[in-house]
């Protein structure tokens, strides 16, 4: 019982089903952990009373037929939750209480889970270290001086510190996979359109995608199954039959072709990352997969493309925060224009403002063709690179990040070096593909490192299977000391 919270989601579900533990006991255990982990600053809002109510309700009338029966879950504070404050990590939404529930969280609740709290994140999911949140930076349980990655940094920190049995994040350029990699957890960015975007505070609409963050690949498949599915309220939602990822999870990957893209061996990449990659290749090869060298020639242009497309969309998506209908409103200003300018300048943080300015500029008259249109052309080339490769391979193996978790404050004064952290994750978002980050080892400082499996569109099952086989044979064990409690 004392150790229930460091178990995997599937183990916990088993314990609930077999009545080894009640939902209430489980919830109380997490609440205790959360209260002892304030130093990590992973939560923006907790909903303990509501969670205890829901746990009791479940225990009184248990329904074990559901995917997530009786499990409390904390979620990134980018998902709108009915009658629970939703901030997107921003001052401008500091007092915003939605009257609606995002489709993805509603799917989780419909599968038997309930809300435990809202997790800190970079402001409007813009960041790679969770240092841009209005609610302060989040600390990586791996070390008190380390960032947990971003933008789903509260999610990765809470998961790794056993403050939630599993969680969900959003990934626009790596915001699930990079923090998963930094905390030794599993993170999946699904195919664009697999999970509904309805009710998720938007950052960049053509790139945003919600996904699970879990301790194991099996957990990941359960969460994905629960949260995904067609939504007629999202015009970019893919209308297809729901898959049963967890039931279909297999560890036989014999004969699968794994692509190794040469462009992912970048300059100045630490030797440890290279070694990790080699280790990954060997594991897959030993499992009977075939390694094939491939080329994704436009890889180096992915980040510059991303830093045009994402800010452009964000500059428009964030225009609605004007202090009229909800959110923060400045008391200063003599007319409408000044009210807008003061509200937005006081309401948004520096990184968000910087990206709004970039986005406004690349769309502005006289610059559109040189930047935005150019980027959409390069995006086409990047997509084509993947399309071509996937005629030859089943999946692609790369490192998740070019380094392990960095120090708090280390990159805050150099935006480009911060952006470079997403160099391996961004191409996947531009091409709308699914990708799984798996914990694969530790660097010499003992910080976790991750490998990334990229699949064809809607090929989540395949990369989960490869990940499942990899996990069993990798021997990685995340043993974080609970220094914070």
């Amino acid at each position, binding site marked *: 019982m004392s150790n229930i919270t460091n178990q995997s989601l599937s183990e916990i579900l088993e314990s609930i089903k077999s009545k080894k533990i009640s939902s209430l006991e489980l919830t109380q255990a997490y609440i205790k952990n959360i209260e002892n982990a304030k130093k990590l600053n992973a939560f923006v809002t907790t909903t303990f009373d509501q969670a205890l109510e829901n746990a009791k309700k479940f225990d009184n009338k248990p329904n074990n037929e559901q995917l997530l029966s009786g499990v409390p879950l904390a979620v990134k504070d980018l998902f709108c939750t009915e009658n629970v404050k939703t901030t997107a990590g921003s001052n401008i939404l500091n*007092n915003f209480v939605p009257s609606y529930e995002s489709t993805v969280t509603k799917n989780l609740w419909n599968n038997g889970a309930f809300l435990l709290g809202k997790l800190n994140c970079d402001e409007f999911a813009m960041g790679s270290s969770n240092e841009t949140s209005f609610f302060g930076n989040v600390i990586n349980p791996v070390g008190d001086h380390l960032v947990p990655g971003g933008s789903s940094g509260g999610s990765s920190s809470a998961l790794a510190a056993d403050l939630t049995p599993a969680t969900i994040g959003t990934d626009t350029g790596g915001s699930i996979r990079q923090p998963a990699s930094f905390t030794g957890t599993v993170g999946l960015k699904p195919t664009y359109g697999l999970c509904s975007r309805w009710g998720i505070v938007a950052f960049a609409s053509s790139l945003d995608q919600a996904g699970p963050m879990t301790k194991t690949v099996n957990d990941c498949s359960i969460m994905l199954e629960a949260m995904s599915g067609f939504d007629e309220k999202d015009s970019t939602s893919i209308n297809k039959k729901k898959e049963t990822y967890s039931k279909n999870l297999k560890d036989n990957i014999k004969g699968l072709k794994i692509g190794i893209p040469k462009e992912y061996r970048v300059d100045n990449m630490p030797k440890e990352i290279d070694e990790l990659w080699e280790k990954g290749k060997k594991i897959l090869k030993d499992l009977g997969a075939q390694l094939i060298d491939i080329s994704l020639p436009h890889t180096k242009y992915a980040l510059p493309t991303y830093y045009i497309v994402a800010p452009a969309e964000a500059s428009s998506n964030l225009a609605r925060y004007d202090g009229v209908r909800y959110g923060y409103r400045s008391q200063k200003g003599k007319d409408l224009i000044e009210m807008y300018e003061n509200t937005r300048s006081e309401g948004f943080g520096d990184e968000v403002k910087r990206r709004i300015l970039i986005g*406004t500029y690349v769309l502005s008259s006289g610059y559109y063709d040189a930047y935005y249109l*150019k980027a959409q052309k390069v995006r086409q080339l990047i997509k084509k690179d993947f399309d071509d490769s996937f005629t030859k391979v089943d999946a692609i193996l790369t490192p998740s990040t070019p380094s392990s978790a960095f120090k708090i404050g280390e990159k805050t004064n150099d935006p480009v070096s911060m952006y470079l952290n997403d160099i391996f994750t961004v191409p996947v978002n531009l091409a709308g593909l699914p990708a799984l980050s798996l914990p694969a080892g530790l660097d010499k400082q003992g910080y976790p490192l991750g490998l990334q499996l990229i699949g064809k569109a809607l090929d989540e099952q395949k990369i989960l299977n490869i990940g499942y086989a990899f996990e069993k044979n990798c021997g990685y064990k995340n043993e974080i000391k609970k220094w914070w409690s």
Partner: protein
Amino acid sequence: MSLDKEKIKHVAKLARISVDEAKVNSLTKDLNSIFKFIEQLNELNTDKVEPLTSILNQSLRSRKDEISDGKIREKILKNSPKKNEEFFCSSKGG
């Protein structure tokens, strides 16, 4: 190309963000380093490439013309920082 302070102020005006005079220098520096990075794209010849309009290879799905929403004035107004029973209240001017 490089972005000067005047250009940045113009863009900020378009984006309805006021730029703090004290921060304009560091902002200029940051934006210029970002644009220098972005402009790597100029190495590529994309004359014959079609821009990508959507990553999804499907057509726009439509809904039936039915009244299925609205009549939720209370919910709509609830979060407004300034409102009365019927309207949002904005600052004067346009």
